[in-house]
Protein backbone atom coordinates (compact mmCIF):
# COMPACT_ATOMS: atom_id res chain seq x y z
CA UNK A 1 0.00 0.00 0.00
CA UNK A 2 2.87 2.35 0.62
CA UNK A 3 3.98 4.08 -2.48
CA UNK A 4 7.41 3.14 -3.45
CA UNK A 5 9.47 6.11 -2.55
CA UNK A 6 12.70 6.88 -4.25
CA UNK A 7 15.40 5.81 -1.94
CA UNK A 8 16.53 9.35 -1.62
CA UNK A 9 13.27 10.23 0.09
CA UNK A 10 12.85 7.17 2.12
CA UNK A 11 14.25 8.14 5.42
CA UNK A 12 14.45 11.87 5.47
CA UNK A 13 11.50 13.22 3.59
CA UNK A 14 7.89 12.44 4.27
CA UNK A 15 5.74 12.60 1.21
CA UNK A 16 3.22 15.41 1.63
CA UNK A 17 0.31 13.11 0.99
CA UNK A 18 1.58 10.76 3.52
CA UNK A 19 2.32 13.59 5.85
CA UNK A 20 -1.25 14.80 5.59
CA UNK A 21 -2.58 11.34 6.03
CA UNK A 22 -0.26 10.78 8.89
CA UNK A 23 -1.43 13.79 10.78
CA UNK A 24 -5.05 13.06 10.00
CA UNK A 25 -4.75 9.48 11.08
CA UNK A 26 -2.98 10.48 14.25
CA UNK A 27 -5.97 12.57 15.23
CA UNK A 28 -8.33 9.84 14.21
CA UNK A 29 -6.32 7.23 16.03
CA UNK A 30 -6.33 9.34 19.15
CA UNK A 31 -10.07 9.78 18.84
CA UNK A 32 -10.58 6.10 18.18
CA UNK A 33 -8.35 5.28 21.12
CA UNK A 34 -10.53 7.43 23.29
CA UNK A 35 -13.67 5.67 22.12
CA UNK A 36 -12.17 2.26 22.63
CA UNK A 37 -11.02 3.23 26.06
CA UNK A 38 -14.49 4.51 26.78
CA UNK A 39 -15.97 1.25 25.59
CA UNK A 40 -13.53 -0.77 27.64
CA UNK A 41 -14.45 1.12 30.80
CA UNK A 42 -18.22 1.10 30.42
CA UNK A 43 -19.43 -2.40 29.68
CA UNK A 44 -23.16 -2.19 29.11
CA UNK A 45 -25.11 -4.49 31.42
CA UNK A 46 -28.82 -4.96 31.72
CA UNK A 47 -30.47 -5.61 35.07
CA UNK A 48 -33.93 -6.56 36.19
CA UNK A 49 -35.99 -3.55 37.07
CA UNK A 50 -38.82 -2.98 39.47
CA UNK A 51 -42.00 -2.75 37.39
CA UNK A 52 -44.82 -0.58 38.64
CA UNK A 53 -48.16 -2.06 39.57
CA UNK A 54 -50.73 -1.25 36.89
CA UNK A 55 -52.56 1.16 39.19
CA UNK A 56 -51.74 3.91 41.63
CA UNK A 57 -50.68 2.82 45.10
CA UNK A 58 -53.90 4.08 46.67
CA UNK A 59 -56.18 2.59 44.02
CA UNK A 60 -56.94 -0.56 45.99
CA UNK A 61 -58.24 1.25 49.06
CA UNK A 62 -59.94 0.40 51.34
CA UNK A 63 -59.16 -3.29 50.77
CA UNK A 64 -55.42 -2.82 50.53
CA UNK A 65 -54.11 0.46 51.83
CA UNK A 66 -51.63 2.75 50.14
CA UNK A 67 -49.30 2.29 53.12
CA UNK A 68 -49.30 -1.47 52.64
CA UNK A 69 -48.44 -1.08 48.97
CA UNK A 70 -45.77 1.51 49.68
CA UNK A 71 -44.05 -0.97 51.97
CA UNK A 72 -44.88 -4.17 50.14
CA UNK A 73 -43.97 -2.92 46.67
CA UNK A 74 -41.64 -0.04 47.49
CA UNK A 75 -39.54 -1.76 50.13
CA UNK A 76 -40.03 -5.50 50.03
CA UNK A 77 -40.48 -6.09 46.29
CA UNK A 78 -37.81 -3.52 45.50
CA UNK A 79 -35.52 -5.23 48.01
CA UNK A 80 -35.85 -8.52 46.17
CA UNK A 81 -35.04 -6.85 42.84
CA UNK A 82 -31.95 -5.15 44.26
CA UNK A 83 -30.75 -8.31 45.97
CA UNK A 84 -31.22 -10.30 42.79
CA UNK A 85 -29.26 -7.81 40.71
CA UNK A 86 -26.45 -7.86 43.23
CA UNK A 87 -26.34 -11.64 43.12
CA UNK A 88 -26.32 -11.72 39.33
CA UNK A 89 -23.62 -9.11 38.85
CA UNK A 90 -20.87 -11.66 38.53
CA UNK A 91 -22.89 -14.75 37.94
CA UNK A 92 -23.03 -17.10 34.95
CA UNK A 93 -26.81 -16.88 35.29
CA UNK A 94 -26.74 -13.31 34.01
CA UNK A 95 -28.87 -12.72 30.94
CA UNK A 96 -31.81 -15.07 31.33
CA UNK A 97 -35.43 -14.12 31.13
CA UNK A 98 -37.07 -14.17 34.53
CA UNK A 99 -38.95 -17.40 33.86
CA UNK A 100 -35.83 -19.16 32.64
CA UNK A 101 -33.96 -17.91 35.67
CA UNK A 102 -36.58 -19.25 38.05
CA UNK A 103 -36.65 -22.68 36.46
CA UNK A 104 -32.85 -22.89 36.32
CA UNK A 105 -32.20 -21.73 39.85
CA UNK A 106 -34.94 -23.98 41.25
CA UNK A 107 -32.59 -26.75 40.24
CA UNK A 108 -35.23 -29.48 40.55
CA UNK A 109 -35.80 -28.92 44.23
CA UNK A 110 -32.31 -27.96 45.39
CA UNK A 111 -32.62 -24.26 44.88
CA UNK A 112 -29.59 -22.13 44.22
CA UNK A 113 -29.19 -18.95 46.27
CA UNK A 114 -30.61 -16.78 43.49
CA UNK A 115 -33.87 -18.73 43.40
CA UNK A 116 -35.53 -17.01 46.32
CA UNK A 117 -34.96 -13.51 45.01
CA UNK A 118 -35.84 -14.35 41.42
CA UNK A 119 -39.02 -16.17 42.35
CA UNK A 120 -40.15 -13.46 44.73
CA UNK A 121 -39.59 -10.76 42.11
CA UNK A 122 -41.71 -12.70 39.64
CA UNK A 123 -44.32 -13.64 42.23
CA UNK A 124 -44.87 -10.07 43.26
CA UNK A 125 -45.08 -8.78 39.69
CA UNK A 126 -47.66 -11.46 39.05
CA UNK A 127 -49.53 -10.59 42.24
CA UNK A 128 -49.87 -6.86 41.47
CA UNK A 129 -51.28 -7.78 38.09
CA UNK A 130 -53.65 -10.28 39.67
CA UNK A 131 -55.42 -7.39 41.35
CA UNK A 132 -57.21 -4.32 40.10
CA UNK A 133 -59.29 -1.51 41.51
CA UNK A 134 -62.97 -2.47 41.40
CA UNK A 135 -62.04 -6.08 40.99
CA UNK A 136 -63.61 -9.17 42.46
CA UNK A 137 -67.07 -10.45 41.71
CA UNK A 138 -67.43 -12.94 38.88
CA UNK A 139 -65.37 -13.89 35.88
CA UNK A 140 -67.06 -14.21 32.52
CA UNK A 141 -66.78 -16.03 29.22
CA UNK A 142 -64.06 -18.64 28.81
CA UNK A 143 -62.65 -18.26 32.29
CA UNK A 144 -66.03 -18.78 33.91
CA UNK A 145 -66.73 -21.75 31.65
CA UNK A 146 -63.41 -23.35 32.53
CA UNK A 147 -63.93 -22.75 36.26
CA UNK A 148 -67.39 -24.27 36.13
CA UNK A 149 -66.03 -27.22 34.20
CA UNK A 150 -63.16 -27.87 36.61
CA UNK A 151 -64.75 -26.96 39.96
CA UNK A 152 -68.44 -27.57 39.37
CA UNK A 153 -69.45 -24.00 40.08
CA UNK A 154 -67.89 -20.63 40.78
CA UNK A 155 -68.90 -20.78 44.43
CA UNK A 156 -67.19 -24.17 44.81
CA UNK A 157 -64.05 -22.61 43.41
CA UNK A 158 -64.35 -19.60 45.68
CA UNK A 159 -64.84 -21.77 48.78
CA UNK A 160 -61.91 -23.96 47.88
CA UNK A 161 -59.65 -20.98 47.24
CA UNK A 162 -60.56 -19.35 50.56
CA UNK A 163 -60.19 -22.64 52.42
CA UNK A 164 -56.78 -23.24 50.88
CA UNK A 165 -55.63 -19.78 51.94
CA UNK A 166 -56.85 -20.31 55.51
CA UNK A 167 -55.08 -23.67 55.72
CA UNK A 168 -51.68 -22.28 54.78
CA UNK A 169 -49.28 -22.81 57.69
CA UNK A 170 -46.62 -20.12 57.58
CA UNK A 171 -45.71 -17.84 54.69
CA UNK A 172 -46.71 -18.63 51.15
CA UNK A 173 -49.02 -18.07 48.20
CA UNK A 174 -52.30 -19.44 46.93
CA UNK A 175 -52.61 -19.88 43.16
CA UNK A 176 -55.21 -20.62 40.59
CA UNK A 177 -53.13 -22.49 38.03
CA UNK A 178 -53.73 -24.27 34.80
CA UNK A 179 -52.07 -27.65 35.14
CA UNK A 180 -50.45 -28.30 31.80
CA UNK A 181 -50.40 -32.08 32.09
CA UNK A 182 -53.92 -32.48 33.41
CA UNK A 183 -55.19 -29.62 31.24
CA UNK A 184 -57.42 -28.28 33.94
CA UNK A 185 -57.58 -25.45 36.41
CA UNK A 186 -56.53 -26.22 39.94
CA UNK A 187 -55.88 -24.44 43.23
CA UNK A 188 -52.34 -24.78 44.52
CA UNK A 189 -50.82 -23.61 47.78
CA UNK A 190 -47.07 -22.97 47.93
CA UNK A 191 -44.73 -22.12 50.79
CA UNK A 192 -42.39 -19.16 51.02
CA UNK A 193 -41.20 -18.34 47.51
CA UNK A 194 -42.21 -21.47 45.69
CA UNK A 195 -43.81 -20.72 42.32
CA UNK A 196 -45.84 -23.16 40.17
CA UNK A 197 -43.74 -22.19 37.14
CA UNK A 198 -41.13 -24.63 38.36
CA UNK A 199 -43.50 -27.51 37.69
CA UNK A 200 -44.34 -26.24 34.25
CA UNK A 201 -47.83 -25.17 35.33
CA UNK A 202 -49.29 -21.86 34.23
CA UNK A 203 -50.46 -19.49 36.97
CA UNK A 204 -53.65 -17.56 36.36
CA UNK A 205 -54.21 -15.71 39.64
CA UNK A 206 -52.19 -15.48 42.84
CA UNK A 207 -52.76 -14.30 46.39
CA UNK A 208 -49.89 -13.33 48.66
CA UNK A 209 -50.42 -14.93 52.07
CA UNK A 210 -47.21 -13.67 53.67
CA UNK A 211 -48.16 -11.67 56.74
CA UNK A 212 -46.59 -8.52 55.32
CA UNK A 213 -49.28 -8.53 52.63
CA UNK A 214 -52.14 -7.97 55.06
CA UNK A 215 -50.93 -7.34 58.57
CA UNK A 216 -51.07 -3.55 58.51
CA UNK A 217 -54.63 -3.58 57.19
CA UNK A 218 -56.15 -6.64 58.80
CA UNK A 219 -53.81 -7.63 61.66
CA UNK A 220 -54.54 -11.31 62.22
CA UNK A 221 -57.96 -11.35 60.54
CA UNK A 222 -56.85 -13.50 57.61
CA UNK A 223 -60.35 -14.50 56.66
CA UNK A 224 -61.38 -10.89 56.04
CA UNK A 225 -58.32 -10.29 53.88
CA UNK A 226 -58.94 -13.35 51.73
CA UNK A 227 -62.63 -12.62 51.34
CA UNK A 228 -61.96 -9.01 50.41
CA UNK A 229 -59.49 -10.21 47.84
CA UNK A 230 -62.09 -12.50 46.29
CA UNK A 231 -64.87 -9.94 46.43
CA UNK A 232 -63.10 -6.69 45.59
CA UNK A 233 -59.55 -7.09 44.37
CA UNK A 234 -59.12 -10.12 42.15
CA UNK A 235 -58.63 -9.10 38.54
CA UNK A 236 -60.64 -11.33 36.22
CA UNK A 237 -59.42 -9.15 33.35
CA UNK A 238 -55.89 -10.32 34.02
CA UNK A 239 -57.08 -13.88 34.44
CA UNK A 240 -58.82 -13.73 31.07
CA UNK A 241 -55.75 -12.35 29.33
CA UNK A 242 -53.60 -15.03 30.92
CA UNK A 243 -56.01 -17.80 29.97
CA UNK A 244 -56.05 -16.56 26.39
CA UNK A 245 -52.27 -16.71 26.29
CA UNK A 246 -52.32 -20.11 27.92
CA UNK A 247 -54.46 -21.54 25.18
CA UNK A 248 -51.54 -21.01 22.83
CA UNK A 249 -49.63 -23.57 24.86
CA UNK A 250 -52.22 -25.95 26.22
CA UNK A 251 -55.00 -27.59 24.31
CA UNK A 252 -57.97 -27.19 26.58
CA UNK A 253 -60.50 -28.99 24.46
CA UNK A 254 -61.54 -30.01 21.02
CA UNK A 255 -62.50 -27.12 18.77
CA UNK A 256 -66.03 -27.15 17.44
CA UNK A 257 -65.41 -27.57 13.73
CA UNK A 258 -68.65 -27.30 11.82
CA UNK A 259 -69.41 -30.20 9.53
CA UNK A 260 -69.73 -29.11 5.94
Amino acid at each position, binding site marked *: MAMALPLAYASSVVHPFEAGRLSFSTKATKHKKQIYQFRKVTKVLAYYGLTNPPYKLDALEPYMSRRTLELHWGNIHRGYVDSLNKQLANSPLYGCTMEELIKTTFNNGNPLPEYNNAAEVWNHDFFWESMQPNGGRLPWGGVLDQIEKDFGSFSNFRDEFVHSAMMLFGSGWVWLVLKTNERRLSIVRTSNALCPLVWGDIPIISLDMWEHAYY*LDYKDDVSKYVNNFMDHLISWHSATARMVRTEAFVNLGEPKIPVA
Partner: protein
Amino acid sequence: MALRTLFTKKALTRASGLGPLGAAAGDRGLGSGLGQARGLTAASLPDLPYDYGALEPAISGEIMRLHHQRHHQAYVTNYNNALEQLEAAVAKGDAPAVVRLQGAIKFNGGGHINHSIFWNNLKPEGGGEPPHSALGWAIDTDFGSLEALVQKMNAEGAALQGSGWVWLALDKGSKKLSVETTANQDPLVTKGLHMVPLLGIDVWEHAYYLQYKNVRPDYLKNIWDVINWKYASEVYEKETA
Protein backbone atom coordinates in the same frame (compact mmCIF):
# COMPACT_ATOMS: atom_id res chain seq x y z
CA MET B 1 -41.29 -34.25 80.05
CA ALA B 2 -40.77 -30.53 80.18
CA LEU B 3 -43.08 -30.00 77.24
CA ARG B 4 -46.03 -31.74 78.83
CA THR B 5 -45.76 -29.60 81.95
CA LEU B 6 -46.28 -26.55 79.76
CA PHE B 7 -49.66 -27.93 78.81
CA THR B 8 -50.75 -29.12 82.18
CA LYS B 9 -49.22 -26.50 84.48
CA LYS B 10 -51.91 -23.91 83.99
CA ALA B 11 -54.59 -26.56 84.01
CA LEU B 12 -53.44 -27.92 87.35
CA THR B 13 -53.02 -24.56 88.99
CA ARG B 14 -56.38 -23.37 87.74
CA ALA B 15 -58.34 -26.43 88.74
CA SER B 16 -59.69 -26.33 92.27
CA GLY B 17 -57.13 -28.35 94.15
CA LEU B 18 -55.80 -31.45 92.50
CA GLY B 19 -59.06 -33.13 91.68
CA PRO B 20 -59.29 -35.85 89.05
CA LEU B 21 -58.31 -34.59 85.64
CA GLY B 22 -61.81 -35.19 84.39
CA ALA B 23 -63.08 -32.59 86.84
CA ALA B 24 -60.36 -30.19 85.79
CA ALA B 25 -61.42 -30.44 82.20
CA GLY B 26 -65.04 -30.09 83.22
CA ASP B 27 -64.31 -26.87 85.13
CA ARG B 28 -63.33 -25.24 81.92
CA GLY B 29 -66.09 -26.93 80.03
CA LEU B 30 -63.64 -28.39 77.59
CA GLY B 31 -64.72 -31.81 76.42
CA SER B 32 -65.07 -33.30 79.85
CA GLY B 33 -65.68 -36.70 78.27
CA LEU B 34 -62.36 -36.31 76.57
CA GLY B 35 -60.61 -35.53 79.83
CA GLN B 36 -62.18 -38.39 81.73
CA ALA B 37 -61.67 -40.96 79.05
CA ARG B 38 -57.95 -40.49 78.54
CA GLY B 39 -56.69 -37.99 81.09
CA LEU B 40 -55.67 -35.66 78.28
CA THR B 41 -55.82 -32.09 79.48
CA ALA B 42 -56.55 -29.43 76.95
CA ALA B 43 -53.98 -26.70 76.48
CA SER B 44 -54.69 -23.21 77.65
CA LEU B 45 -53.25 -19.78 77.04
CA PRO B 46 -50.66 -18.96 79.71
CA ASP B 47 -50.77 -15.48 81.21
CA LEU B 48 -47.97 -13.07 80.47
CA PRO B 49 -45.75 -12.40 83.49
CA TYR B 50 -45.80 -8.67 82.62
CA ASP B 51 -48.05 -6.04 81.06
CA TYR B 52 -48.44 -5.77 77.32
CA GLY B 53 -46.72 -2.40 77.27
CA ALA B 54 -43.89 -3.41 79.57
CA LEU B 55 -41.47 -4.36 76.80
CA GLU B 56 -41.54 -1.02 75.03
CA PRO B 57 -39.73 0.43 73.17
CA ALA B 58 -38.20 -2.85 72.02
CA ILE B 59 -41.58 -4.44 71.28
CA SER B 60 -44.72 -2.32 71.20
CA GLY B 61 -47.71 -3.00 73.42
CA GLU B 62 -49.95 -3.36 70.40
CA ILE B 63 -47.82 -6.16 69.03
CA MET B 64 -47.64 -7.92 72.41
CA ARG B 65 -51.40 -7.73 72.82
CA LEU B 66 -52.16 -9.08 69.35
CA HIS B 67 -49.41 -11.64 69.58
CA HIS B 68 -50.66 -13.02 72.88
CA GLN B 69 -54.44 -12.56 72.70
CA ARG B 70 -54.94 -13.34 69.02
CA HIS B 71 -52.10 -15.39 67.60
CA HIS B 72 -51.16 -17.52 70.61
CA GLN B 73 -54.83 -17.95 71.55
CA ALA B 74 -55.57 -19.14 68.02
CA TYR B 75 -52.81 -21.74 68.23
CA VAL B 76 -54.20 -22.96 71.57
CA THR B 77 -57.77 -23.15 70.28
CA ASN B 78 -56.85 -24.90 67.06
CA TYR B 79 -54.53 -27.27 68.88
CA ASN B 80 -57.32 -28.29 71.22
CA ASN B 81 -59.69 -28.79 68.30
CA ALA B 82 -57.14 -30.90 66.48
CA LEU B 83 -56.57 -33.02 69.60
CA GLU B 84 -60.30 -33.60 69.97
CA GLN B 85 -60.56 -34.65 66.36
CA LEU B 86 -57.53 -36.88 66.86
CA GLU B 87 -59.19 -38.53 69.84
CA ALA B 88 -62.26 -39.26 67.78
CA ALA B 89 -60.22 -40.57 64.87
CA VAL B 90 -58.12 -42.83 67.10
CA ALA B 91 -61.25 -44.16 68.81
CA LYS B 92 -62.80 -44.96 65.44
CA GLY B 93 -59.56 -46.43 64.12
CA ASP B 94 -59.63 -43.93 61.25
CA ALA B 95 -55.94 -44.02 60.30
CA PRO B 96 -56.11 -41.62 57.34
CA ALA B 97 -57.77 -39.02 59.56
CA VAL B 98 -55.16 -39.56 62.27
CA VAL B 99 -52.36 -38.97 59.79
CA ARG B 100 -54.12 -36.02 58.16
CA LEU B 101 -54.40 -34.27 61.51
CA GLN B 102 -50.67 -34.43 62.20
CA GLY B 103 -50.00 -31.27 60.22
CA ALA B 104 -52.48 -29.24 62.24
CA ILE B 105 -51.19 -30.69 65.52
CA LYS B 106 -47.57 -29.97 64.64
CA PHE B 107 -48.36 -26.45 63.53
CA ASN B 108 -50.75 -25.37 66.26
CA GLY B 109 -49.14 -27.41 69.02
CA GLY B 110 -45.75 -26.13 67.97
CA GLY B 111 -47.10 -22.59 67.98
CA HIS B 112 -48.38 -23.07 71.52
CA ILE B 113 -45.10 -24.57 72.75
CA ASN B 114 -42.93 -21.98 71.08
CA HIS B 115 -44.89 -18.98 72.23
CA SER B 116 -45.12 -20.25 75.80
CA ILE B 117 -41.33 -20.37 75.86
CA PHE B 118 -41.11 -16.99 74.13
CA TRP B 119 -43.12 -15.13 76.80
CA ASN B 120 -40.68 -16.42 79.41
CA ASN B 121 -37.74 -15.42 77.26
CA LEU B 122 -38.73 -11.77 77.50
CA LYS B 123 -38.49 -9.59 80.54
CA PRO B 124 -39.11 -5.88 80.91
CA GLU B 125 -36.71 -3.38 82.47
CA GLY B 126 -33.13 -4.43 82.40
CA GLY B 127 -33.95 -7.71 80.78
CA GLY B 128 -30.80 -7.19 78.79
CA GLU B 129 -28.63 -8.10 81.78
CA PRO B 130 -25.98 -10.48 80.44
CA PRO B 131 -25.82 -14.09 81.54
CA HIS B 132 -23.50 -15.01 84.38
CA SER B 133 -21.84 -18.11 85.75
CA ALA B 134 -22.53 -21.41 84.05
CA LEU B 135 -24.40 -20.15 81.03
CA GLY B 136 -22.04 -17.20 80.59
CA TRP B 137 -19.02 -19.48 80.53
CA ALA B 138 -20.72 -21.89 78.19
CA ILE B 139 -21.47 -19.05 75.78
CA ASP B 140 -17.87 -17.89 75.88
CA THR B 141 -16.66 -21.42 75.27
CA ASP B 142 -19.01 -22.27 72.46
CA PHE B 143 -19.25 -18.90 70.69
CA GLY B 144 -16.26 -16.88 71.86
CA SER B 145 -18.25 -14.08 73.43
CA LEU B 146 -21.78 -12.89 74.07
CA GLU B 147 -21.45 -10.41 71.21
CA ALA B 148 -20.54 -13.20 68.85
CA LEU B 149 -23.60 -15.18 69.92
CA VAL B 150 -25.89 -12.19 69.48
CA GLN B 151 -24.39 -11.48 66.08
CA LYS B 152 -24.85 -15.10 64.99
CA MET B 153 -28.45 -15.26 66.14
CA ASN B 154 -29.22 -11.96 64.45
CA ALA B 155 -27.61 -13.07 61.21
CA GLU B 156 -29.45 -16.38 61.16
CA GLY B 157 -32.70 -14.74 62.17
CA ALA B 158 -32.44 -12.15 59.42
CA ALA B 159 -31.51 -14.73 56.81
CA LEU B 160 -34.39 -17.04 57.63
CA GLN B 161 -36.70 -17.08 54.63
CA GLY B 162 -40.40 -16.93 55.32
CA SER B 163 -41.59 -17.57 58.87
CA GLY B 164 -39.84 -19.33 61.70
CA TRP B 165 -37.83 -19.11 64.89
CA VAL B 166 -34.18 -18.69 65.80
CA TRP B 167 -33.04 -20.53 68.92
CA LEU B 168 -30.19 -20.69 71.38
CA ALA B 169 -30.23 -24.42 71.88
CA LEU B 170 -28.62 -26.73 74.41
CA ASP B 171 -27.81 -30.26 73.36
CA LYS B 172 -28.54 -32.26 76.48
CA GLY B 173 -26.29 -35.07 75.36
CA SER B 174 -23.14 -33.17 74.50
CA LYS B 175 -23.92 -30.17 76.75
CA LYS B 176 -22.98 -27.89 73.86
CA LEU B 177 -24.77 -24.72 72.90
CA SER B 178 -25.71 -23.96 69.33
CA VAL B 179 -27.78 -21.57 67.27
CA GLU B 180 -30.59 -23.26 65.37
CA THR B 181 -33.46 -22.12 63.22
CA THR B 182 -36.79 -23.81 62.68
CA ALA B 183 -39.36 -23.10 60.01
CA ASN B 184 -42.95 -22.03 60.63
CA GLN B 185 -43.98 -23.30 64.08
CA ASP B 186 -41.73 -26.33 64.23
CA PRO B 187 -40.52 -26.69 67.80
CA LEU B 188 -36.77 -26.97 68.46
CA VAL B 189 -37.07 -30.66 69.17
CA THR B 190 -37.57 -31.21 65.42
CA LYS B 191 -33.91 -30.28 64.99
CA GLY B 192 -32.75 -32.94 67.42
CA LEU B 193 -34.42 -35.03 70.09
CA HIS B 194 -31.89 -33.86 72.69
CA MET B 195 -32.23 -30.17 71.92
CA VAL B 196 -33.55 -27.95 74.69
CA PRO B 197 -34.47 -24.33 73.94
CA LEU B 198 -32.81 -21.76 76.16
CA LEU B 199 -33.91 -18.75 74.13
CA GLY B 200 -36.17 -18.44 71.15
CA ILE B 201 -36.84 -15.38 69.02
CA ASP B 202 -39.99 -15.30 66.92
CA VAL B 203 -39.18 -14.01 63.44
CA TRP B 204 -42.65 -14.41 62.00
CA GLU B 205 -43.71 -11.07 60.56
CA HIS B 206 -46.54 -10.78 63.07
CA ALA B 207 -43.90 -10.49 65.78
CA TYR B 208 -42.54 -7.21 64.45
CA TYR B 209 -44.23 -5.91 61.33
CA LEU B 210 -46.50 -3.31 62.89
CA GLN B 211 -43.54 -1.65 64.55
CA TYR B 212 -40.50 -2.39 62.43
CA LYS B 213 -42.23 -2.95 59.08
CA ASN B 214 -40.02 -5.14 56.92
CA VAL B 215 -36.79 -4.24 58.70
CA ARG B 216 -36.33 -7.48 60.59
CA PRO B 217 -32.66 -6.72 61.50
CA ASP B 218 -33.78 -3.71 63.58
CA TYR B 219 -36.22 -5.87 65.54
CA LEU B 220 -33.50 -8.43 66.16
CA LYS B 221 -31.10 -5.73 67.29
CA ASN B 222 -33.58 -4.25 69.77
CA ILE B 223 -35.04 -7.42 71.22
CA TRP B 224 -31.81 -8.12 73.10
CA ASP B 225 -32.75 -5.24 75.42
CA VAL B 226 -35.59 -7.34 76.80
CA ILE B 227 -34.15 -10.84 76.68
CA ASN B 228 -34.53 -12.74 79.95
CA TRP B 229 -31.12 -14.29 80.55
CA LYS B 230 -32.17 -15.34 84.05
CA TYR B 231 -34.70 -17.77 82.60
CA ALA B 232 -32.17 -19.09 80.10
CA SER B 233 -29.63 -19.62 82.90
CA GLU B 234 -32.18 -21.47 85.01
CA VAL B 235 -33.06 -23.82 82.20
CA TYR B 236 -29.38 -24.34 81.38
CA GLU B 237 -28.48 -25.16 84.97
CA LYS B 238 -31.42 -27.50 85.36
CA GLU B 239 -30.57 -29.42 82.18
CA THR B 240 -26.85 -29.64 82.84
CA ALA B 241 -27.17 -30.56 86.50
